[in-house]
């Protein structure tokens, strides 16, 4: 048994950390924060030169053909650095959707461009300020044309193509692949709680669209996609939470009050210890998710939900207590505390809220216990 990343994966991590320290520094992140720039295009290009976008894309489609463990390693570093790029939308969601359900032609059309850093993708699912659900979707896919309004769509303002969940002619949910540069597409940026990441409302008025995956299989695909992305986002969350903890630690050691470092007060020490515990538990849950994702294990659905819940709560906890540790300075635009706070909440919502994932987690544990009971396994039936 070995429950750790390999030496090669660790050296990829070191390399990524070094690259991002330089190319996604606070100064660089703030260029996006303080302007209308939707993302850091120069950084995006640099990441492509490092081959990151193609990490888990097969060589046949222009990628590096590594596995998802390598992608987890990169995700943690991207989360730590707050890199303002459409990596999650493009790689964890759009590219994964193509890999899971795309036809050869669809893969050929988009995957090599994604791997090169030449195409940005997004997932258009939500339709307003409520949890998306198969019964409430109103966007329609009929006769190869898409009609409806999707919002918020993360990176929808800068994406070249979208994977869209819509109701098909038979009323069931299917996925559609849409070239966003085509006719019938109107986009308007929406302000977000984290201005280092951009969000759009996309209106489709008979936009040409191809079916992605089997007709009627859209919601199942969305759920599979969400599980896979949940593990990767959990690593971004763990990276961000660790950075917030590191920042709080450094400040508490250097900041003196009442004649001593505030880090010597138990009120601060215990706060930081609790942040550490939350981050470590989240990291361990994320590791299990990484194992399940990389081996396509049947445990993935439970592991992903647990990783998502754990990381979501750890990041928000670490980000808010980092501000608290900084006192008044933590509430200023000048200090980076708010960047983690904003990102923590954005990531907490971009794949659906912790409330919904907790419900999913229990549903999946119930299903597993039912299967075990049916198979006569004794462990779960200790009533």
């Amino acid at each position, binding site marked *: 048994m070995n429950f750790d990343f390999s030496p090669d994966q660790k050296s990829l991590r070191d390399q990524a950390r070094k690259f991002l320290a330089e190319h996604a520094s606070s100064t660089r992140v703030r260029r996006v924060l303080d302007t209308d720039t939707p993302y850091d295009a120069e950084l995006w290009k640099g990441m492509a030169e490092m081959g990151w976008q193609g990490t888990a894309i097969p060589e046949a489609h222009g990628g590096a053909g590594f596995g998802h463990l390598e992608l987890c390693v990169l995700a943690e570093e991207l989360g730590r650095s707050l890199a303002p790029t459409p990596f999650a939308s493009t790689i964890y969601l759009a590219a994964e959707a193509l890999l899971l359900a795309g036809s050869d032609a669809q893969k050929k059309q988009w995957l090599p461009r994604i791997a090169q850093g030449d195409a940005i993708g997004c997932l258009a699912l939500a339709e307003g300020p409520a949890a998306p659900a198969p019964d409430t979707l109103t966007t329609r896919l009929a006769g190869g044309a898409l009609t409806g309004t999707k919002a918020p769509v993360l990176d929808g303002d800068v994406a070249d193509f979208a994977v869209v969940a819509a109701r098909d002619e038979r009323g069931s949910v299917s996925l559609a692949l849409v070239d966003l540069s085509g006719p019938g597409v109107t986009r308007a940026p929406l302000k977000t709680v984290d201005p280092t990441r951009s969000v759009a409302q996309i209106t489709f008025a008979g936009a040409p669209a191809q079916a992605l995956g089997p007709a009627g299989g859209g919601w199942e695909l969305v759920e599979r996609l969400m599980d896979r992305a949940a593990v990767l986002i959990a690593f971004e969350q763990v990276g961000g939470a660790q950075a917030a903890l590191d920042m709080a630690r450094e400040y508490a050691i250097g900041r003196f009050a009442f004649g001593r470092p505030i880090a010597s007060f138990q009120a601060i020490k215990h706060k930081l210890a609790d942040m550490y*515990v939350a981050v470590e538990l989240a990291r361990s849950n994320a590791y299990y998710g990484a194992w399940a994702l990389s081996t396509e294990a049947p445990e993935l659905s439970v592991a992903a939900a647990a990783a998502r819940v754990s990381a979501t709560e750890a990041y928000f906890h670490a980000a808010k207590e980092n501000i608290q540790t900084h006192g008044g300075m933590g509430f200023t635009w000048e200090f980076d505390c708010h960047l983690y706070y904003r990102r923590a909440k954005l990531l907490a919502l971009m794949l659906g809220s912790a409330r919904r994932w*907790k419900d999913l987690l229990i549903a999946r544990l119930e299903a597993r216990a039912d299967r075990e009971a049916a198979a006569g396994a004794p462990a779960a039936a200790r009533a």
Partner: protein
Amino acid sequence: MDFSDTREEAAFRADARTFLADNAEPRSGVFETWQSKYPDYEGLKRAKAFQAKKAEAGFAALHWPKEWGGRGLSPIYQVIYSQEESRYLVPRGYFEIGLGMCMPTLFTYGTEEQKRRYAPAALRADEVWCQLFSEPGAGSDLAGLRTRAVRDGDEWVINGQKIWTSGGHWADMAILVTRSDPKAPKHKGLTFFFLSMKTPGIEPRRIKQISGASHFNEVYLTDVRIPDSQRLGGVGAGWGVAITTLMNERLSSGEYRGPDFEELFALARGLKLEDGPAVKNAAVRERLADFYVKTQGVRWSRFRTMTALSRGDTPGPENSIGKLVNAAKGQDLASYAMDLMDMGGMVIDHDWAPMRAAFQEALLSSPGSRIAAGTDEILRNIIAERVLGLPQDVRVDRELPFEELPTSKR
């Protein structure tokens, strides 16, 4: 990342399975602990018998050196053995202090002859060890202890009182920290010994806990004489020895033994609330998910630790998180399970309450888990200082002679 066994690990697992199938008692369908099934001395007697078989078969101390009855294996084998053992009802809480804390201390500070004399006997549970550390005035602040050791030729004369001594009433041997020099600063005037609990002048008295059980004792020491040859470490160097003992505590304790997520989930699946099965209630589902995520977080953290240990890393202070999380979680989980039973939750009658009242029992035993082996607060200090490297609190007791320190008002 890989959960599969190597060939050697698979062979070891098969051996462990065979041993357990032949010698251990399978778990029944109902949640129970060794202590709930076999109370008090009956439990000890059966535990000793099982431990002797375990030692005989070579499963009792996998990572100990071979010369002391171990197999010199990496900690991953302990994980494998524990996984297999968890399917059985096996004794817990009898020999961990002796094997996990006292023996490693003896290995570090004892003579070869002492190791040869005591280690195999401890392993077979021929001799049970306890730890005479805490005192009424020295718990979290262990270095504030007052039990006096006065040298008399080749012997030391001990007078004082110890407390919270788990298994002190049935222990054969003990390790002991004393104050040999009250004029020195508190950490510098301590001396460490081991001794037989049959030594004249030792009087254990069992303490009744809030759960009604009596696992630990106060131990009075009156003119107890210990030969100087049973001193571990130098005169006045006892604090360093005690730290060795406590470092090992991190690895040997912290396994929560009360009902856990699995039992709560089974309860929620079986219980009806006013609006249907408890597990279908949205508020219940949210709480269940919280408990699950913590449980699994600790579980996978242990796998990460064991992976690091297998590579030769030493057990670090980061292992404190398992105990810190599990103890508080156990208490909350027990209380929540009782809430689900509504009015029925009041009842601790084993023949009436769900799961033979395991949750009610845990409600009453779990406060102890948050205090024993490092309180929640001390563990947070350890994480803050030793893992995160934060500065120590301002101390008023570092340099002053021990006898000049302010003490609690009586």
